[in-house]
């Protein structure tokens, strides 16, 4: 309890890096260096992170705050603040990502909190994970200037040891249907919080691409479900839609059971979250009906 908290606090070293080179140096030379964005969750210097000996805040490293827009993707430095990204506007960044950013906290917190911190939060997937999962974002991790790892967000569980998140690459595509919905309390994150994203591309009444991502107690994209929709001619029939919802429920249950074996999942909230997921899926499919 309190005792643990205090023992741990005494010996923490805070390291400052001015640029990426210094960061690489400290990454190599300082044992068990804990790298965070702005630290707005205030957990890093608390008893939930026992064993941290050294900490480095990336918020001030300009090299990690760069945003570069290309034709097909946008690269966002992991220490970019949420406000910085939001200011790019709805026309530059994908709508679902924009909506997700808007829904986070308040403008003052957004001036401080970083995209890297939001993605790397391990206790629960936070707001941005779901739209990035749907958008098939890629994560770039670095251990040094020459040692780089690229991990698609769908395969991301936690930051690889010895690396830090340097960049997020978000593909830019045209989507005919973009839906993002934040569930649960609007002003805070708790066990009832969840995030739903639905994207669809339609060409001449045929669904050519569809992405469905949900992050709550469990986080997933159901590729089997998405594949069933690919190539379907619109409008969707009610029968097909209902079958799809039933299948979505089964897939959800399977995924839930698998995750429950690995992690402790809050059971109280799950009935609600599952139903909300199915409701929103139904709502999204109505757009295709």
């Amino acid at each position, binding site marked *: 309890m309190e005792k643990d908290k205090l023992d741990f*606090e005494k010996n*923490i070293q*805070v390291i*400052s890096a*001015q640029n990426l080179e210094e960061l690489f140096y400290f990454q190599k030379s300082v044992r068990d260096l804990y790298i965070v964005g*702005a*630290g*707005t969750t*205030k957990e890093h*210097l608390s008893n939930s992170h026992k064993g941290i000996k050294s900490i480095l*805040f990336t*918020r*001030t490293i300009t090299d990690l705050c760069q945003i570069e827009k290309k034709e097909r993707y946008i690269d966002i430095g992991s220490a970019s*603040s949420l*406000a910085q990204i939001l*200011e790019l506007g709805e026309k530059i960044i994908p709508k679902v990502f924009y909506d997700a950013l808007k829904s986070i*906290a*308040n*403008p*003052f*917190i957004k*001036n*401080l909190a970083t995209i890297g911190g939001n993605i790397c939060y391990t206790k629960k997937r936070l707001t941005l994970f779901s739209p990035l999962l749907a958008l098939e974002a890629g994560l770039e991790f670095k251990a040094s200037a020459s040692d780089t790892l690229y991990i698609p967000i769908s395969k991301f569980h936690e930051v690889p040891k010895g690396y830090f998140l340097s960049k997020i690459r978000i593909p830019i595509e045209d989507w005919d249907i973009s839906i993002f919905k934040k569930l649960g309390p609007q*002003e805070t994150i708790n066990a009832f919080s969840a995030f739903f994203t639905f994207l669809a591309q339609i060409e001449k009444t045929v669904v050519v691409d569809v992405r469905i991502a949900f992050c709550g107690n469990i986080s997933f994209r159901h590729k089997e479900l998405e594949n069933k929709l690919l190539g379907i001619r619109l409008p969707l029939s009610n029968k097909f839609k209902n079958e799809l919802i039933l299948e979505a429920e089964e897939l959800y249950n399977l995924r839930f059971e698998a995750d429950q074996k690995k992690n402790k999942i809050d059971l109280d909230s799950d009935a609600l979250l599952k139903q909300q997921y199915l409701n929103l899926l139904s709502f999204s499919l109505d757009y295709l009906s």
Partner: protein
Amino acid sequence: MKIQCILNGKLTLIETEVQDLLSDSLRKNGLLSVKNGCYQGKCGACTILLNKRPVPSCLVYTSSLNNDEVETLEYFYKSEDYQDIEEAFVILGIKLCGFCNAGTLFTLYDILQRSKQFQKKELETKIRTINCDCVEEESLLKAVLLAKQIKDRRLGEEIKKYGKR
């Protein structure tokens, strides 16, 4: 440990412990415009300008500062941006309670700096971040629009006087 930053325009070393929050450090240094209302970044009472952006100082570890520019209300009060807002307040008869001043004034400052079109919905979202009973939304909306006029008038006069800056 000592942390270097540019505090209210001066290069300063702040004595801090690792887990100190910036709101507490600033208050220890006599900058009492920073108030602690929630320690969650929700109420705005501890708002400061960090590199010209309003942030809740209760969510910033002092030890994370790295030559950042930190401005509190004590410094902001001397600026022309503040005078524009103050004039609007006087005209509208708005008096703040003293607790939410940092959040209210820096919110209005940020709107005046960054809002391009001053659409009501956008303004409402930003003003809604201020959690205080002393002034309600409508008055603050009027204040920001009036402050904008005052600011435009001031800048127009400066341009006339000094040419384009």
